[in-house]
Structures are given as structure tokens and as C-alpha cells.
């Protein structure tokens, strides 16, 4: 029986269509994975189901009845519970208190919270679903995995039949992930329905009965996990876009500019986000890094560009060990960086383009006299970037926030490429950028390479990395799976590598 049915859901935000005619059907008593890259519209879709967003078009049906949720309260009443990526628990209260918070059992005519009843209710739930949780423990004292279970208990206590989990494994250790999947199995055995959001296709295959894949806000596939393979899912997620065949001849590589040696980055939870990665990028070549998002690309790039000190290994740039050097030193040494996140990092949103044009060069002699910024030359520079990189509107006084995504990206690319760098680290340069700007940015990248600049390109778009790169490494769970020749490698082989398997293993 169909538990949840979303059909034709469209949700627009100014300038962005987050969900475009998305359909999702979830059978009762199953685990359903909602798979897609960051920004594919998974969370938006679930927020629609949970009543946080009202869809512009489309219908939401629960157990065959069409519903319109104005708020999460309505969704909860309809038996839908959501466990957010960031837990909403009160650290100083006990597990039982957190579970009943907002719906406390009362005594003395509602004057007093009945703690005994609360504990009993939580004990009861734990027994029923086989949770190993101590209701009297303080939330601050229990592990992240247990905290997640408390969130699940909270939803169950409120009578949820359908549980939505937003990236539930992002915060867990591998052991805790296994435990979670066991819990999900027990929940479905009791007739509950689970939807979990993930960008890790291995998890989707392993834990879910069915999977729906979203890409760029559209449903691109809905299939039972039994009938699919990792590479098929990888292809669906990453997609093939209009072929912009611009790669003609290979670059003529020169000396090694960037030498990454056994780099390891460990996160706060002790998990290796980047594990023992080594690579060499030479002048005049594009070195590509492919992989599904979230496999250590961000951490690797942060360690290379000086935003983060790696836990082990070394980064050598132009013959100098820059592993421990500051971000400013990296910039001054001639490393340009087009970041993944243009809103948070690449641009100061409230500032105009004149100020943004010297971000990173605010102390460079070209724009300063002593400690004073020469705003006239900064303005000239911004105007040059705007002209050369076709940024619209052609107004250096416009704030960064007022530009569209594609124009913001062109401005950042222009600013970084105009530094006359020895190495450009480019991350997802064409994500969320229109076709015209995409082509333009890619052409510029190759021009830069032909002028003898080393380019490190990180992208999850298969076409982009294969057509632009001269050499290509595939990253999976923080490790380099293999280094391949982008001209000869097949998409199938790449798909397998991105999913963590070597082609010959099959």
C-alpha cells in the first residue's frame, strides 16, 4: 500500500527552481532512499512533505488522502516525523525528558509533569523497537548515535508512522551507521515507513528497499534497489549534460607546481575525511579530481589552499613546503582558488564588486600604497574583470548579492584568473551556472592551462572532468581510487570507481 505520494511537486525560490515536477512514491513498511547530490533538491522536497514549505504546484497524499500541510504541526498530526541533520535536543535534559518535550504526560490536573509516566513511555518504546537507550541519561552524556535514536524516539512518541531522516549518516561513525540501519530494519518490521535523504549511493543500496534519484531538482529515476547497480545510480546522480566538446588537444605539461604527499585530514569525530592522498600537478596541465560530492574533496582542497592544516602529509607549492603556512601566504605565493561556495566564501555578499574584486589582494602592492587601499585601482580592476568576463550588470557598484549565480561565478573566476597565478584550484566551477557561462568558464580554464598555469579541477560532473582534464584521479571516501587517462576511460569504469569499486573486481 502506498504510504506517501508526492506528485508534480514544484517549489520555486527567487532565481532557483529547487523542485521541478518531482514525483515520489513510498510504499508502507519500506525504507526509501532519496538520493542526489548537494543542491539536488532533496531537503526542499522533504520540507514540503513536512509542512515547512508550501509547494507552488503539485499534491501531497498520505495514505491515499490528499493533504495540505500549513506547518510541521499538521504533518506530525498526519503521522509524519522528521529527524533533521542537526539534532534539536536539549543537552542538559534527560533522554526521557527530551522525548516527551512538548507533549509531556501530566498529573495533578496538568500542573506537574509526570516523570514516571514519561520514563515508562520511553522504556516501552525502546522495548518495542529494540533500542538500547537509557531514558535517565543526560543527552549531553550520550554519543551522537544515541542522540539520533532519541530524535527517532521523539518522533515515534508523537505517533509518527512515517519517519524522514535528513542525511542521517553524516554525523555517525561506520559502526554507528550499521547500528542505525539495524534500527531502520526493526522500525519497518513494525510497520513504520522510512524515507532517508542521502548523497551516498552505497548506503542507499545497502539500507533501502527503493530509491528515488533527484538531480537539479528533477526526478531522474525511481527504482527498487534490487534491480539497480552502483554505477547506474552514480550515473543517474551525476548525469550527463549537453556535450560541450571543447577539449581538442592535450596540454604540454612542464615542471611540477603542486606536490601533495600522503595528505590526511581528520575531522572532529576522528574520521579521516582525506586519507593518504598523493598527487602531482604540473605546469600547463589540468589535473582533474572526480568523485561523488562529499568524498573528501572539500577537505582536500581546504588543506591545499591553506584554509586548513592537514593532520598528516605535506603540500609543496613551487618547491616550497606550504603545509603549515597561512592562507595569505598561499595567495601571495601565487595560488588562485575558485571556491565551491561562492555565497559563503567566494564573495562578501553585502559588499560591492569593487571591494570583492580585491578580496585576497587587500594587501597586495597592486592595490595599496603602504597600508592604504587604493580604491581607484581597485575600481579599475573590478571594471576590467567585469568587462573581460562578461559579468552583468556591468556595474562595479552593484553588491555581490544582487548578481545572479552565473554572474557571481564569472566574477570570482575572473578575479582569481587575473591574479596571474602559478596554480589555480577550481572547485565545481560551473555548478548552478547557465550553459553560456559554463562554456565561457571552461574555455578560460583551458586558455589558462595553455599559458602554462597548473590547474587542479574538482568537479562531480563527469563530462566536465573528463573533457577538461589531462589526468584524472577518482576520489572515494577520502582515498584516491585510481588515476586514469580521461581520454580512454569509459564512463562505466569511472562510475564504478566513483562508487568505490575497481572495474577489474567485477
Amino acid at each position, binding site marked *: 500500500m502506498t504510504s506517501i505520494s508526492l506528485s508534480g511537486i514544484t517549489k520555486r525560490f*527567487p532565481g*532557483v527552481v529547487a523542485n521541478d515536477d518531482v514525483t515520489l512514491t513510498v510504499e508502507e513498511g519500506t525504507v526509501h532512499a532519496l538520493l542526489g547530490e548537494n543542491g539536488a533538491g532533496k531537503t*526542499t522536497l522533504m520540507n514540503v512533505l513536512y509542512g515547512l514549505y508550501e509547494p507552488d504546484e503539485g499534491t501531497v497524499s498520505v495514505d491515499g488522502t490528499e493533504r495540505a500541510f500549513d506547518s510541521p504541526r499538521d504533518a506530525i498530526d498526519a503521522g509524519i516525523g522528521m529527524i533533521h541533520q542537526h539534532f534539536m535536543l536539549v543537552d542538559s535534559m534527560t533522554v526521557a525528558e527530551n522525548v516527551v518535550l512538548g507533549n509531556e504526560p501530566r498529573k495533578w490536573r496538568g500542573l506537574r509533569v509526570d516523570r514516571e509516566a514519561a520514563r515508562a513511555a520511553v522504556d516501552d518504546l525502546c522495548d518495542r523497537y529494540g533500542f538500547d537507550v537509557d531514558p535517565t541519561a543526560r543527552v549531553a552524556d550520550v554519543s551522537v548515535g544515541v542522540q539520533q535514536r532519541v530524535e527517532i524516539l521523539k518522533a515515534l512518541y508523537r505517533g509518527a508512522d512515517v519517519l524522514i531522516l535528513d542525511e542521517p549518516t553524516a554525523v555517525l561513525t561506520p559502526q554507528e551507521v550499521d547500528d542505525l540501519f539495524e534500527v531502520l530494519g526493526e522500525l519497518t518490521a513494525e510497520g513504520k515507513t522510512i524515507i532517508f535523504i542521502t548523497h551516498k549511493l552505497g548506503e542507499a543500496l545497502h539500507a533501502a528497499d527503493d530509491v528515488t534519484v533527484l538531480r537539479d531538482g528533477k526526478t531522474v529515476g525511481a527504482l527498487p534497489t534490487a534491480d539497480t547497480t552502483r554505477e547506474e545510480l552514480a550515473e543517474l546522480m551525476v548525469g550527463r549534460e549537453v556535450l560541450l566538446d571543447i577539449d581538442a588537444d592535450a596540454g604540454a605539461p612542464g615542471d611540477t607546481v603542486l606536490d601533495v604527499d600522503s595528505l590526511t585530514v581528520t575531522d572532529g569525530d576522528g574520521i579521516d575525511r582525506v586519507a593518504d592522498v598523493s598527487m602531482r600537478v604540473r605546469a600547463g596541465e589540468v589535473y582533474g579530481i572526480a568523485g561523488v560530492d562529499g568524498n573528501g574533496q572539500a577537505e582536500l582542497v581546504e588543506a591545499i589552499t591553506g584554509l586548513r592544516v592537514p593532520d598528516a602529509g605535506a603540500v609543496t607549492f613551487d618547491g616550497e613546503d606550504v603545509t603549515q603556512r*597561512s*592562507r595569505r601566504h598561499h595567495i601571495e605565493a601565487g595560488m588562485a582558488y575558485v571556491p565551491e*561556495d561562492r*555565497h559563503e566564501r567566494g564573495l562578501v555578499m553585502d559588499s560591492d564588486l569593487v571591494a570583492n574584486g580585491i578580496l585576497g589582494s*587587500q594587501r597586495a602592492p597592486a592595490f595599496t600604497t603602504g*597600508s592604504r587601499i587604493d580604491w581607484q585601482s581597485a575600481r579599475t580592476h573590478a571594471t576590467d574583470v567585469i568587462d573581460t568576463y562578461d559579468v552583468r550588470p556591468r556595474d562595479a557598484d552593484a553588491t555581490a548579492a544582487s548578481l545572479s549565480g552565473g554572474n557571481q561565478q564569472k566574477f570570482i573566476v575572473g578575479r582569481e584568473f587575473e591574479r596571474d597565478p602559478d596554480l589555480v584550484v577550481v572547485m565545481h566551477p560551473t555548478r548552478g551556472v547557465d550553459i553560456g557561462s559554463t562554456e565561457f568558464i571552461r574555455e578560460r580554464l583551458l586558455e589558462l592551462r595553455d599559458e602554462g598555469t597548473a590547474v587542479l579541477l574538482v568537479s562531480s560532473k563527469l563530462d566536465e572532468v573528463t573533457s577538461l582534464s589531462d589526468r584524472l584521479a577518482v576520489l572515494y571516501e577520502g582515498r584516491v581510487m585510481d588515476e586514469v587517462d580521461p581520454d580512454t576511460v569509459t564512463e562505466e569504469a569511472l562510475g564504478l570507481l566513483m562508487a568505490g569499486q575497481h572495474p577489474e573486481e567485477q
Partner: protein
Amino acid sequence: MSQDTPRWRRAIARLVDASVKERLVISVAALVLAVAVGFVIVTLAGLAASCTTHPTIFGVRTPSCYDPFAVYSELFLGAIGHPEQVLFGTGTWTPLDFRVASLLRSTTLLVFTGLAVAVSFRAGMFNIGVQGQLLLGALAAALATVYAAPLVPGGVVGTLVLVPVGIVAGALAGGVWGAIPGALKAYADANEVITTIMLNFVAANLAYVAVSTWFTPADSSLVQTATIPAAARIPNVPFGFQPRDNFSLLGLLFAVALVVGVAYLLARTSFGYDLRTSGSQPEAAAYGGVKEKRTMVTSMGISGALGGISGAMLVLMVQGRWLSNLPQLGFDGITVSILAGNNPLGVGFAALLFGVLKSGSAAIGFGTNVPPALVDVLRGLIILFVAMPEFFRLLGGRLGVGGDVDA
């Protein structure tokens, strides 16, 4: 913002995105609105009060005891001693009136504390510790001038040496005291709001104990330092108010110079660029190679130094010594800075408004029968109305409302 975002969020987003000109219009409108509301309150309070003589407005005897026209005339014109008397030939007013001096004295001192708070705000931090920095700056200035006095000749030369010595001592003491919470935040991740509040108490008690133990003259019954030498007082030039008014135009000029200096520092220097970028978008600052920890400590140091200078000016221009009950200018500085939208140039005007309200309140007390409590209500109304839009802008900016319209 899409249609289903709550109304309040959309309203705040519009405030956050308002231009400088719009903000100025909003401020003036808020002032007018505050006066209008105040009018009603004064009239209503007058109806509730009992009195023997009722005021006559436009020839009509009112049932209310208080005359709102008189109240606001005192608040704004009485604040500077009724200059309109000269126009009507009903009095003799000069720009050197003692009320003008009192107004400008408050303004001068508030400019420093307002700037101190504004600098920290622009760097993305909230320095609530200006009062503590002021107290220590004042103490340093008093002690430095008292102990340096025997080493320098009196007269003009003495002044030329002692006044800078006092101001630099105040700036150093306040700067160090301000840099401490900056360093605690940068290197120990301690919230600066909490640490600056706590350091206020530490500063107040530290200064009190130090002065009562070592620096109180034997013949004094109060906890205070010795009086600073006459040469260390800010000279009453270029032209004179009465010496008893404790105000010097030179002090005001110094305040104006600092306003321009801080505005220049923020807008025109590499350091100012780093400071503002850290304040508005720390991630982008890190990306742009800003040394965030160093910037934090330096910004708080500068903020503290400005607080210390306010203390030094309080001693060198007004009090002439360190006292245990120095005025709470540090806290007024927070309001001044918010009124000014944390813009250094705006701080000058906000401090002036604050000064007018302070001086005008006293004038209402002399010139009308309105009780002091009601005067405080009117003053609070104006500050509340003018500060609220800026306050919400600040809050909205922190909540990430407005600006980027992305999903």
C-alpha cells in the same frame, strides 16, 4: 524572499537591505513619530495629574496640566539655552551658554565610547566592556599626569607634554584591557559578550582597590586620586567657555578628528578591509587570507583604546581626577553606536542627539512642571524609536535575513 516566508522576516529583510539614504529617512521619521507619541503621552499624563494653573495653548486653556509644546521646546531648544530668544529679542543668548557647553561635553565623551563600540561591532564582535576600559583608561590618565607632572615644566610646555601623555596612557590601558577579551575569543573561543561584561566588574574593583590602597591622598575621605596638575587639563582654547563648564572646544575637535580617523581606518586601509570582512562574513575573510585571530585581537584592542581615551578625556577635561563613581558612559556608547548603525560618521550625530536629550531633560526640569520620571519616558521613547530600526537591521543581519535571496 518567497511569499511563504513570514511577514516579520520579509519586513526585517527590507530593513537589512535599506540604503544609507533610506536609513537616514527612517531615522528622521522615527524621531518625528517618537515626538508625536510623546505629545499624546504628555497630554494624557497632564489630564491625570492635578494642578492649579492650566497652560494655555494657542489662546485656549487646556484641561491638561502639562503643555506638550513647552515640553518639546525645552527638550530641543532649552537644551542649548533657548537661542530663539535672540530672534524675538526676549533674552540674551550666546553660543557660549553653559547649556551649550554641557551639551557639547556629553557629546564629546559619548563620541569616544560610541566609536569604541562601533569598531567592535564592525569587526563582528560586541564590546560591552567599554565601561571597564573607560575606568582603567581614566585611572591611567590620572596617574600618568600626576606622576609625570614633577618631571615637566608648567605652563604651555607642560600642557603640550602632559595632555598627550594622559591620553596615550588612557589609550594603552583601555587597549590592553580590550585586547584581553579579543585574545580570549581568538585563542580560547570564549564569547566576548560574556568576558567583556565580566571584565567590567574586574576593572571597576581592581581600580577601586588600587586607588584606595595606594593612590588616595591622605587628606581625602573619598576613594579618589590626587587632582591632576592644572597643566594637564585640556586647555580651554580656541575660545573660552566658562572654566566651570568643564568643556573645551579642543576636546570636541579631538573627538571629531577621531571620528574621521576611525572612518578612514575602516574604509580606506587594508586593516579596515580585513576588519569589516571578518565582521560581515568570517568565511569569506578566511578565504581572502585575513588572519582572523590577529584581526580579532587588534580590533578589540582598538575598541578598548577608544574606550580608554574616553576615560582619559573624562579625567583631563571634566573630573580632574579619578573617582570611584565615574559616569556610565560606556553603556551609553552601545546605544550611541546602534543609533548610528555602527557607522563612525553616524556616531558623531548620534552622540549629539544623546547630548541634546541629556541637556534638554535638565531644561525640562527647570522650565516646566512635568515630573522627571515623565521626562525619562520621553527621552527613552526617542532613543527606542530611533534605535529600533537599526537594532532590527543588526539582528536581521546576524540571522542571515535579507541580502542574498537564494534558497
